[in-house]
């Protein structure tokens, strides 16, 4: 078995497992939904089938046990219960670990127990079932009416190559009900041209069954791609039961054996019945006309009812290895850089035709950039649904009643961002569940409903995404945190700190106010991981809490990792780049202004006092300082700060290039970019520069 095929099978199986989990969780909310039960069954069935095809026998054997029980559910013999869902979820996990272990079951004892549990559940429930009235069954499965199908099964020539025996499939059909099969030998070539390994026959089957269309599709489930399959309902209990069925000519046309044209030609040559009647004077033409109209009408209605299933959705997506996307993004980045140079050169040259072309190129490059970056955008919804499982399991483990709500699941984020967000979100949600939401009794005592709520949401805001995690638990204990922070020297003892600052203490490494350590949390590690993860994404976290009411954590993540809009500035002869998202305005700073404030780095902007950081001093640039400098005023975490530069050159589309490990510890520089003329400009991290300046002032003042 080639590894490549195995890999494809595994990937698809993982997808089925993810689908299965979602369906199971939904099924728990809607235990009567037959559609969901069908989905669950089909996922399991497909995994079993393809598993055994690719040699994953342990997997197939285990899945078979689960499938048997699910079949009972499908047929209404077993109701959907919380226990069943739990078992199915556990089974899904087991299947996943067998898949991971390349068809080795890592925990044979556990899976054996699961199988026993399943059998027990199936045994007791079905026994209990037979005692009850079927009419008032929970699983509202009404007796399927008898429906007659016309099935044309036309396998492709090569179907024998995958070991399919059409006769076996036909026999399976026979088991579904009253069946008449006619084989068609139209395509059979003469003996000399006959290849015994090819399948030339096809079959017309008329089947009357109560089992429903699904049962028929199941028979052909593995050969769906290797044959032409047409299933039409030609009679169901709803149609007016007139013993006279369709005309021969019509049947032949419906089957495609006779073209409508040919039928018409032959019919034209014979006199129509209606005409004959009118000729004989038995009925008036109008009566014939109206009868014809009725005939056509009902035929039309019936035809609609028996219309073929909607065509298979064309592949709306294709799998692409992630590295190809990375390559694409790299190339797009280079393109943006070169295009900037092109623009520069064209402007210098002054040739209007050249400038026009370069503008066209700029427009196209921008579109290309946006499209390429969008390719990697995925809706965050899939991450959210993963957490539903986490919430369910955790709340059960801790004995709390918690439900999770989400909004903004369609919000799209870059794939790597979603992956990197996963761990931080897990930590935050665990905290909410473990520390935030109280036990049901405590909640009732506090006048809240015993059902705790965790709200996960995402929304776009400017060029960032805001992700909110809100719980209606007990909220953060401001005073305990403050005390602990002072204890650990993180907060000076006698200062007034705002709520926000106190809450942000929870992100310090090893910080925990938990009295005891549980299996879920308490060690003080989680929030640190969260902070570092979010920092790595160049995002920010803020915490808001009301004691007794709940806590809200908001993550702000920039939308793109690779290319950002920024402001190009010059200090001395070096160029620097400031991310535009936080920049609000630029104003002039003259020597006068500096004198007015007596050497303190403060500026008067329309009446407000704004502190500024002289970047020249930070970077020890000693070239000539211009008379009039520029202050770039930015909003950093709610504070307005200015950064003094010599000149503001203009907006610049910055392709972010990492500086590498060697410069990892440099504060204030988050990367580099290549300008249109080939020189390197450093990308400044304004938040870090602010922090450095703050620490510097504190140490100088002390």
């Amino acid at each position, binding site marked *: 078995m080639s590894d490549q095929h195995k890999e494809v099978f595994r990937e698809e199986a993982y997808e089925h497992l993810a689908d299965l989990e979602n369906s199971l969780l939904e099924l728990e909310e809607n235990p009567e939904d037959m559609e969901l039960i069908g989905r669950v069954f089909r996922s399991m069935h497909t995994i079993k089938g393809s598993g055994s095809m690719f040699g994953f026998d342990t997997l197939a054997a285990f899945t078979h046990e689960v499938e048997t029980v699910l079949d009972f559910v499908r047929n209404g013999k077993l109701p959907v219960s919380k226990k069943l869902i739990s078992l199915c979820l556990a089974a899904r996990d087991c299947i996943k670990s067998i898949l991971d272990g390349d068809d080795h079951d890592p925990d044979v004892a556990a899976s054996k127990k699961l199988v026993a549990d399943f059998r027990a559940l199936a045994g007791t429930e079905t026994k209990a079932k037979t005692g009850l009235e079927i009419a008032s069954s929970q699983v509202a499965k009404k007796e399927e009416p008898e429906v007659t199908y016309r099935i044309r099964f036309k396998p492709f020539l090569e179907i024998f190559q995958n070991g399919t025996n059409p006769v076996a499939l036909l026999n399976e059909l026979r088991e579904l009900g009253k069946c008449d099969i006619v084989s068609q030998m139209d395509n059979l070539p003469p003996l000399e041209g006959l290849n015994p390994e090819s399948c030339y026959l096809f079959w017309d089957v008329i089947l009357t069954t109560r089992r429903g269309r699904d049962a028929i599709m199941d028979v052909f489930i593995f050969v769906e791609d290797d044959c032409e399959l047409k299933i039409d309902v030609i009679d169901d209990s709803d149609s007016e039961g007139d013993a006279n069925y369709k005309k021969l000519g019509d049947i032949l046309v419906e089957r495609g054996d006779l073209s409508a044209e040919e039928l018409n030609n032959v019919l034209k040559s014979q006199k129509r019945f209606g005409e004959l009647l009118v000729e004989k004077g038995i009925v008036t033409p109008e009566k014939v006309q109206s009868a014809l109209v009725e005939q056509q009408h009902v035929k039309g209605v019936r035809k609609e009812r028996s219309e073929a299933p909607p065509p298979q959705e064309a592949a709306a997506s294709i799998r692409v290895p992630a590295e190809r996307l990375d390559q694409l993004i790299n190339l797009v980045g280079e393109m943006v850089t070169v295009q900037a140079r092109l623009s520069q050169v064209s402007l210098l040259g002054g040739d209007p035709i050249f400038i026009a072309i370069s503008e066209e190129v700029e427009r196209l490059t921008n579109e290309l950039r946006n499209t390429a970056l969008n390719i990697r955008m995925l809706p965050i919804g899939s991450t959210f649904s993963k957490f539903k499982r986490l919430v369910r399991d955790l709340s059960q483990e801790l004995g709390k009643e918690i439900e999770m709500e989400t909004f903004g699941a369609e919000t799209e984020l870059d794939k790597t961002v979603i992956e990197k967000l996963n761990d931080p979100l897990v930590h935050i949600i665990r905290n909410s569940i473990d520390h935030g939401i109280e036990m049901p009794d405590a909640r009732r005592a506090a006048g809240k409903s015993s059902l705790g709520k965790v709200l996960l949401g995402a929304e776009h805001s400017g060029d960032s995404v805001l992700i909110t995690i809100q719980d209606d638990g007990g909220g953060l204990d401001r005073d305990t945190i403050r005390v602990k922070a002072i204890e650990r020297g993180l907060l000076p003892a006698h200062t007034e700190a705002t709520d926000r600052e106190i809450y942000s203490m929870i992100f310090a490494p090893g910080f925990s106010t938990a009295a005891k350590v549980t299996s879920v949390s308490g060690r003080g590690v989680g929030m640190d991981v969260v902070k570092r993860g979010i920092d790595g994404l160049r995002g920010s976290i803020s915490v808001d809490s009301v004691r007794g009411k709940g806590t809200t954590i908001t993550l702000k993540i920039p939308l793109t990792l690779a290319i950002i809009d920024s402001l190009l500035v010059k200090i001395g002869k070096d160029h620097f780049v400031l991310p535009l998202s936080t920049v609000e305005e630029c104003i002039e700073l003259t020597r006068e202004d500096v004198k007015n404030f007596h050497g303190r780095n403060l500026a008067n902007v329309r009446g407000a006092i704004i502190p500024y950081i002289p970047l020249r001093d*930070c970077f020890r640039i000693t070239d000539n300082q211009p008379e009039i400098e520029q202050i770039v005023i930015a909003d950093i975490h709610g504070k307005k700060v200015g950064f003094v530069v010599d000149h503001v050159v203009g907006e610049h589309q910055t392709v972010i290039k990492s500086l*590498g490990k*060697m*410069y990892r510890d*440099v504060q204030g520089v988050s990367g580099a970019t290549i300008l249109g003329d080939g020189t*390197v400009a450093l990308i400044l991290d304004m938040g870090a520069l602010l922090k450095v300046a703050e620490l510097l002032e504190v140490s100088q003042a002390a």
Partner: protein
Amino acid sequence: MAEELQTTQYLTFTLAEEVFAVDVDRVREILEITNITKVPQVPDFMRGVINLRGCVVPVLDLRLKFGMAETAQTVNTCIIVVEVEMDGEKIVLGALADSVQEVIEMESSQIEAAPHIGTHLKTDFLKGMGKHDNRFVMILDIDKVFSGSELSAVSGQES
């Protein structure tokens, strides 16, 4: 250091008229000196970064790292772009050299261990000393020269 007879190719270059050598398969290319963008708050020998066909590559001044006077730029000064292993990853770096000489071949028999004193260099930095054309060539262990711990250690003792 008993090894089988191996012939390795080395690129020789000069720093303040002393000849050094580095394993040829670590050398990616040699560039003429170009604009180096300074990055603030780093040790002196980390001169800055350059643009290498769209990639940002850090450039180090080996003379400063080895305790010699800073490299003065002449028409012969160039940047040797090397591939170094740091913490398990392959990193591309540039090193300033006063001039680049030639590629020579040396057999392992021609290489002796570096003496513990007298070179004014950390013995870690040297793989050995080779004899070529009646001169001694100091063969650098490029991974050790640029190792991460070295960088932070030096920044602590900035003189």
